[in-house]
């Protein structure tokens, strides 16, 4: 199955340490980085119920007043009171015990941070990776060796170096983990990335274009191949413009029957999504005219 693929554009070393990797922001502005041995986060919701969140599945815990908001890796946040008195953290300075009432925000780092292996076709042009883990794309395509269970959320930062007159696009897609038999044109022996993409269940595309009398032809699309194509360019709600020359955080979720994109503080959703697989790989493709950079990509 993997014949013809080149392994390992990079294979970053997984973060060392045992436990859940966390960053705690304290009320005085201190930032404590390390690993905690706490694996479950008890959250009291209402007067009786206590929900135990697996800490590794939590994205962050934010304290506002006396209550906390637990933001999971994917899905809706939940508000309540965390029933912990302290949080042990193993840091570079040694073990510290953080009183919970000092913690303003607890960020849980994804285990995939810096630990993804990116694959590409042999001699694929327009693709390179820097020593710092940045992916540079100009017409190239790359995908992860790892596959991830659904539902999931993908977070990364995106950088368009400069806008070209011909316009351009960047695709971030969840592709099938293995070819399925119900696709008419799929050659099971020499499955190529292109044909894997044919079975793409879900993805998003950023695109930019030229200035027209109606504004820039910029937009972002949440897509599901074969079942829906939903452009969410919302004119004239807000002029959508893919700004070049700046890192922009992107968060893309696929949960249940909907996909959700959060970009520059604006949420976009597509409902009625049907995903045939239980797992998926991540694939990134760019147009040949523009140079796109991706960094800090994690899957939750």
């Amino acid at each position, binding site marked *: 199955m993997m014949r013809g693929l080149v392994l390992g554009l990079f294979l970053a070393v997984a973060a060392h340490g045992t436990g859940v990797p966390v960053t705690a922001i304290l009320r005085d502005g201190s930032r404590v980085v390390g690993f905690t041995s706490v694996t479950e986060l008890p959250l009291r919701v209402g007067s009786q119920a206590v929900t135990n969140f697996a800490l590794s599945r939590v994205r962050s815990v934010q304290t506002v007043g006396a209550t906390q908001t637990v933001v999971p890796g994917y899905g809706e946040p939940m508000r309540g009171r965390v029933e912990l008195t302290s949080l042990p953290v193993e840091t570079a*300075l040694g073990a*510290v015990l953080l009183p919970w009432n000092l913690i303003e925000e607890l960020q849980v780092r994804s285990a995939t941070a810096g630990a993804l292996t990116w694959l590409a076709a042999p001699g694929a042009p327009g693709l390179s990776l820097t020593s710092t883990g940045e992916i540079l794309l100009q017409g190239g395509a790359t995908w992860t060796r790892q596959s991830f269970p659904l539902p999931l959320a993908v977070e990364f930062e995106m950088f368009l*170096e400069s806008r070209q007159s011909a316009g351009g696009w960047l695709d971030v897609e969840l592709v099938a983990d293995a070819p399925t038999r119900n696709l008419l044109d799929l050659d099971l022996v020499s499955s190529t990335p292109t044909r894997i993409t044919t079975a793409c269940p879900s993805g998003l595309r950023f695109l930019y274009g030229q200035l027209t009398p109606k504004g820039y032809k910029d937009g972002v699309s949440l897509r599901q191949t074969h079942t829906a194509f939903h452009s969410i360019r919302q004119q004239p709600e807000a002029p959508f413009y893919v700004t*070049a020359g*700046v890192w922009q955080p992107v968060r893309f979720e696929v949960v249940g029957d909907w996909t959700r994109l959060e970009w520059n*503080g604006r949420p976009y959703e597509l409902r009625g999504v049907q995903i045939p697989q239980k797992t998926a790989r991540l694939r990134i493709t760019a147009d040949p005219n523009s140079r796109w950079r991706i960094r800090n990509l994690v899957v939750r």
Partner: protein
Amino acid sequence: MAGMEAAPEGLMGKLTGKIIASLLVCALPVTAADWQIALSLTDGARIIGAPATVGLPLLTTGVGRMQIPWERIRQIEWSADRQMATVTLLNRDQVRGAVEPGAWRVRTAFGTHTVPAAMVRKAQFRPAGARDVWWAVLPIAPADPESKPSSAAMVVDEADVVLDGWQVRSQRTFARPVTFECDAVLTRAPNKEPQLGIRFVPADEPRDAAPSRCVALVIGQRRDGRQYMTVFRNGVPVSTLYEELGGLNVGEAYRLRVRWDDESFTVTLNDRTFVTKDVTAWYDSFHIDLYGGPGERWRVTECAVRP
């Protein structure tokens, strides 16, 4: 500081002024308890607390071994090879030397901890009670087409930024009453109308468009050379705090402090304070934005927020 203003003109006067200023700095009634140390570590951590030792042992080439009291230090930065460190004192004098290896004891909110000096990337000292402001560049294309793409250098060190056509926004939100303070230096001004803007932006505003509904302070200079400070509410000027303050000069450092409580807006610029009333807001939680005028470059450092 009145002694400085009364100092005579000329070289001798300037020297006398500098000596007096140094003496004043050294004579400030500052104790270690009033100050906090913020250590940025090589693993990304930031430890804030009070030093548990007397001072910084430094080996200089000129004077030899010396110990500088913590409360006289503004900042310590290491060279890339970590052989030498530049220690900036409160009066901005600088001493270069090798920081003696060892560990620093720091009393933090979560106990007293030993920090190996080799792990410290940068050390800052400031009055206790301040919160860092960490910035992120906004995806708003600069008005000046010649502005370079933003880069990692734009946000120099989370709390320090260079505004070169791009705007920045605080990563976290704040609530009133709030005091924002920073040091700003205008390092490039292609025209005679430089300006520095500070916006208090509602928390739910999108990042990719300049907010039209917010409270903002603009410090600038008109073409005729008169300086102004104007408070805006939803783009409409509420009041101009002061005019004819003098020009904004390239290379000059401006210490800025903005206090916004329930209704009043207090701006302190280089020890001169101006107050305006009736600056009400309809939002409780907000980000802080910084931006400069087209083609200008501002270096804004030591950004901090106090409740």
